[in-house]
């Protein structure tokens, strides 16, 4: 049987913890990073966040786990998270310690899953002039992202009100009126 210990601590409140600033090092990837490489199907017999995180991105970069530190930010090109609807993908990313994903565009099911589980996602075209290791600051209040190395400031594509409400409630299930 699946034990209660396998419940989902990563769902607690909204991912930013109510803060308006997210700061972290960039981990840069390309276009169309699919959910099969984020978490391959051979690991989908579990939904335990720690177990999933242990294999996060390993088919893209087998040293991903060694390279990323808590708080790091994935910076991607187009169509991040395309393919399978597996929610295990954003769960694996979040449990790896990644604080946010910034992409030029997201595949829609992945984007939806991130909102639902509280992994911060921002639509912003900054991958082309970012390098892994760059210090990235997201100011959610101002809707701006800064790269400390290049000193460039980017505007984040605004989040629709409807989605803001889900995030503010702490995820989709918390938004259900009692």
């Amino acid at each position, binding site marked *: 049987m*699946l034990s209660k210990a396998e419940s989902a601590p990563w769902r607690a409140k909204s991912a930013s913890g109510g803060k308006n600033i997210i700061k972290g090092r960039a981990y840069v990837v390309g276009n169309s990073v699919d959910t099969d*490489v984020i978490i391959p199907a051979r690991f989908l017999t579990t939904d335990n966040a720690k177990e999933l995180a242990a294999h996060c991105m390993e088919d893209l970069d087998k040293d991903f786990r060694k390279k990323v530190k808590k708080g790091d930010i994935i910076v991607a090109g187009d169509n991040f998270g395309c*393919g399978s609807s597996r929610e295990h993908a954003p769960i694996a990313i979040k449990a790896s310690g990644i604080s946010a994903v910034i992409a030029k565009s997201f595949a829609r099911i992945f984007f939806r*899953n991130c909102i639902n589980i509280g992994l911060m996602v921002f639509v912003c075209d900054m991958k082309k002039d970012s390098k892994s290791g760059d210090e990235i600051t997201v100011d959610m209040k101002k809707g701006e992202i800064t790269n400390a190395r290049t000193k460039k400031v980017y505007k984040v594509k605004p989040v*629709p009100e409807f989605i803001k409400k889900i995030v503010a409630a702490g995820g989709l*299930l918390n938004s259900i009126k009692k």
Partner: protein
Amino acid sequence: MNYVENILAGASARKSVSAGEYIEARCDVVLMNDVTGPLAVKEFLKRGKKIKNPSAVVIVCDHFTPNKDIKSAENVKFLRDFAKKQKIKFFEIGDGGVEHVILPEKGIVKPGDVVIGADSHTCTYGALGAFSTGVGSTDAAFAMLTGKIWFRVPEVMDFVYTGKKGKFVTGKDLILLTIGKVGVNGANYKAMKFSGPVIRALSMDERFTMCNMAIEAGGKSGFVVPDNKTAEYVKGRPGRKARVFEDGPSAESIKMDISSVKPLVAAPHLPDKVKPAEKFNNVKIDQAVIGSCTNGRISDFAQAAKIMKGKKVAAGLRCIILPGSQQVYGDAMKAGYIETFLKAGCVIAPPTCGPCLGGHMGVLAGGETAISTTNRNFVGRMGAVTSKVYLASPYTAAASALKGRIISPEQL
């Protein structure tokens, strides 16, 4: 309002909706499988006891079934127990198959329905004229708790196909052509409408194939506005009646004359790397897979059997046939296709997603190459990270299996 807007206005009890609006809609079908179901059910159980609308919820365990290992078996058992307690539909392997093949077959999805599934290929049911889209496990949990789900009403991209279809050109080739043209995110967030004389003449099986792969262009759904063929397909199947909706203008229209289109193949590692099959004649293959939610229906096996009849697959090549359902398996047997495949040296697997996602029943070793009628050719999709998958129609996969390298069926 167009077809999608009309369905969604009805499902959200509004007079009108338009693209870009956020709505909460009733779900006629909520689908889960053995990968996405356990997570959805655990989230549901934290907050609820009884499913709001149990008749809408369906569980199909197909990804790792017949259970490939103990963990898979535990997941299936967990879902089976939940289904029993909640009195919801659950299909045992002896009465089932691959989710997107069996739901239409069993009359569970009907034209005009709103369907969500915790599986990205849920877009398949647009072939019946349903508004149908893939979501995550939390979305499925939400729908079990409330009977509803939120959507952003999508813009419609109308793909109009005209011209004369070549002899071996199938629905699979048309959707590969389309993905190749717009790219893997060319229809992101959009509903892809398939229309024109070529679609009107296309079989229901091939329409399922096209709608199934809408997600590979980023589409929220793919659909065909119901016609006589849809009505004929639905006739005699159990379940509720079809709902009828009017169509209206689309945001965008893309016309394609397909007269000169040849059988196509998508090369690794994205479904939009599309070229004519004959351009890949130097690619040697180790395995051919024919089946899946994309091409696991009876006419797909008719096509493959037509190519393989009286022939043998190439020495050293493994050809795996995956009927999409028990029904399809039986029909293929009656039609003599199974015997054709056995004599050709193919292995017949039980209905399962199996190798499509590198699950079981035909996983690739490092450096191996497959031609497959499935829907994705991402890095490591069918097994080892250094393996490769080329996507093609049943005709092309069968022809290539005979030669041991990729060929167009026209080259036989």
